C-alpha cells in the first residue's frame, strides 16, 4: 500500500517514514503538489509550533492540495501538530487558523501539571478501525503543550490534569495527538490499521 508522507520541514519525517515502512507501507516522502493531490493515503506529520506548521502548509499551498485529495477520496492521518492543524484554530501564540477539516479548537493543556506533557499516557477509546487490536487504556507516547478537548470528532481521549482529545475522525480524516512512531507495538498497530484498514 502506498502512503504519501508530506515532507514538512517542521516535522520528524524520518521516524514516521521508518515506522510506516515497518508496517509494510510503501512510503513516498514528498512536497510535490501533484503527487499529494493524487494520493489515496496521506500522512501529515508535525512537531513544534502550530503556527510554524500552518505557515509552511499555506506558503506551499499544501492546504488546497490536501483538500483536493480528500475530496477525491483520499484518507489522511495527522500526527501530533499534524493532528492539531486539522482543527479550525489554535490559541497558540494568539489565535492561528488551522485547516478546518475537523471542527473545534486547540487549546493549552488545562491544569497545573508541567507542560509540555512528555511521556506515556493511557488512551481511552471505543471501537474504531484505527484502534483495532489495541486495548482501551493502552499507553501511547505524547509530547505536547496544546490539545483539543471534547472535540465533536473525538474518537479517543486521555487525561493530563484535565481530559483532552487524543484522536479524532471526521469521515476519512484521522488525527492522533500522540506519536504512534514512538509508541512501540501499540503505535505501530495504529499505523498498520491506517495503512490497511482505512479506505
Amino acid at each position, binding site marked *: 500500500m502506498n502512503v504519501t508522507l508530506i515532507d514538512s520541514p517542521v516535522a*520528524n519525517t524520518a521516524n514516521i517514514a*521508518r515506522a510506516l515502512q*515497518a508496517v509494510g507501507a510503501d512510503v513516498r516522502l514528498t512536497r510535490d503538489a501533484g503527487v499529494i493531490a493524487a494520493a489515496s493515503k496521506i500522512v501529515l506529520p508535525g*512537531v513544534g509550533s502550530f503556527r510554524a506548521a500552518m505557515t509552511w502548509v499555506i506558503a506551499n499551498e499544501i492546504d488546497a492540495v490536501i483538500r483536493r485529495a480528500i475530496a477525491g477520496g483520499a484518507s489522511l492521518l495527522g500526527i501530533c501538530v499534524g493532528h492539531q492543524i486539522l482543527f479550525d484554530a489554535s490559541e497558540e501564540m494568539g489565535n492561528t487558523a488551522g485547516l478546518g477539516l475537523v471542527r473545534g479548537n486547540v487549546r493549552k493543556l488545562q*491544569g497545573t501539571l508541567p507542560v509540555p506533557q512528555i*511521556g*506515556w499516557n493511557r488512551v481511552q477509546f471505543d471501537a474504531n478501525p484505527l484502534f483495532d487490536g489495541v486495548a482501551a487504556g493502552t499507553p501511547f507516547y505524547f509530547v505536547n503543550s496544546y490539545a483539543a478537548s471534547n472535540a465533536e470528532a473525538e474518537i479517543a481521549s486521555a487525561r493530563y490534569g484535565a481530559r483532552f482529545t487524543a484522536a479524532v475522525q471526521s469521515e476519512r480524516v484521522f488525527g492522533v495527538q500522540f506519536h504512534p512512531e*514512538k509508541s512501540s507495538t501499540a503505535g505501530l498497530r495504529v499505523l498498520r490499521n491506517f495503512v490497511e484498514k482505512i479506505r
Partner: protein
Amino acid sequence: MPSLDILGGRVVRLSRGNFSAVTKYGSVDAVLEKLSLPAGTPLHVVDLEGSRDGRPGALDVVRRLVRRDLRVQAGGGVRTPADARLWFDAGAERIVVGTITADDPRLLEQLVGSFGASRIIPAVDLSNGAIRIAGWTRETAAPLASVLRRIEQTGIEEILVTDIARDGVLAGPSLALYRRLAHETRLRVIASGGVSTLGDIVSVARMPNVSGCVIGRALLDGRFTLTEARERAAAPNAMPERIIPCLDVCDGRVVKGINFAGIRDAGDPVECVRRYEAEGADEIVVLDISASDRGVATSVETVRRIADAIFIPLTVGGGVRSVEDFRAMLRAGADRVAINTAAVQRPELIGEAAKEFGVQAVVLSCDAKRVGDRFEVVIRSGKESTGIDAVEWCRRAEQLGVGEILLTSVDRDGTNIGYDLDLLRAITAAVRISVIASGGAGTVEHFADAIASGGARAALAASLFHDRRLTISDVKAHLTSEGIPVR
C-alpha cells in the same frame, strides 16, 4: 486535605509531635489568606492544647472556619460525649478522636451511637508500631490489631493514621505502614504525616486503602498548592511510570564501568536496544562517554543506527556543547538530548536549545555527589566537583527550560545498593518537571522505592539490564504488584 495545628489560637507545626519544637505560622486568618481555600474545602484542624490537656480548646477557631464555609474535621481533647458535642455545636462536620480509641472503647461506641459512625474518625497515632496517645506524650499497652478490630465493630469505616516519626519532618509518608494496614483491616485510611512533595500525594493516592491524606507543613510552606495536589491525586494511574535501560557507548560499542571508571566492552548497541524494546523498555538513554573528550561527531552514526532499530523514544547525551550538536543528534534520530558539563559551564545553552527545539528536547543530566548533608554537582563524567548545590542547579535549569532531569547519584553508580532516595527527594521536592532516577539500582524493590518514595517518574539502569541480572519485565511485574502503574 489541608491540616492546621492550633496552639494558643494560632497556627503552628510541631516536629515529630514535640511541644518544644514549634514552628509558628501566624494567625488563623493570615494562614487562610495565604492558602486561599475555595468554599467547601475540607479542613483538618488539630487542637494541640486540647489534645494534651484533655478538653477541647480551639472551639472559637472552628467557628471562624465554619463561617468561611470550610468543612471542618476537628480533633483534640475529646474524652467524653459532652466534649464531642462541643465540637459539633461549634460547626465541625466530623471529629477526630485519638486517646479514647485505645483507652476507652465503650466511649467510642457511645459517640457512634449519638452522632453516627460517619462523623467519628478514630486517629491511630503510631510510633514504631505502638499506639501513642494524649498528644503523643505516652504510649498505650493496647495492641494495634485489637484496637482496629474494636473500631471496625462500631461500624466506623475510616481512620486517620499518623506515623509520628514522619510527622512534620517532610521525610515522606509511611507507605509501608499503610500497605501493612491494608492487610490488617478493611478500614479506609486517611494518611497523615510526612507528605511533603507532589510525588508523595501520587504515591498515597495509588494505595487502594488510602481514602485521603492530610497535608500540613508542605502547604503552609508553599511547597505546592492544594489545587496541584488535588490534580495529581485525581488520576494517579493515568500516566505509567517508565523503566529506562541506559547504554554507555564508546566508539560505537556498549561499555560498562563502575563509579565512572574501569571501562570494559559489553556488546553491540543495536542488538541491545532491540532486546530492550521487546522486553518493554519505555525509552532508551544512550550516553556516549567518548564524546565528552572528542565531540559528538563520533556518536552521530551510533545514534542513527540505534534510532533506526527502535520505535520508542530515544534520549542521547555525551559531549553535547552547542545548539549545533543538538541539531546533529536530533537529525540522527534522537528525540531528546541530554546535556551535562556544557550546561554547567554555560547555562544559557539550555535556553538556546529550548528555544530552537522545544523544552521537550532538552534533558538536564545532573550528576550529584553527597557532600555532608547536601548534594553537589559534579561534571566531566564525575571527574570534577563544581561546588554547585544540586538542588539549586536543578531548580535553575527548570526555569531556563529543560523538560526533564536525569539525576545520577555518582556515589551509588554501579554499586547496586539502591538509588539515593535522599537525593531524589531533595530534587523532586524542588522542581515540578519529572525526574529520572539513576545510579544504584540492584533489585526490583529499588525501582519501586525510587518511584514511590523518591518521587521519580522514571528509573534508569545500565549494567543490571545489560548483564540480564534483571529484565525490564521483572521490574514491571514488581511495580505492578506494588500498585505502581506501568505500560
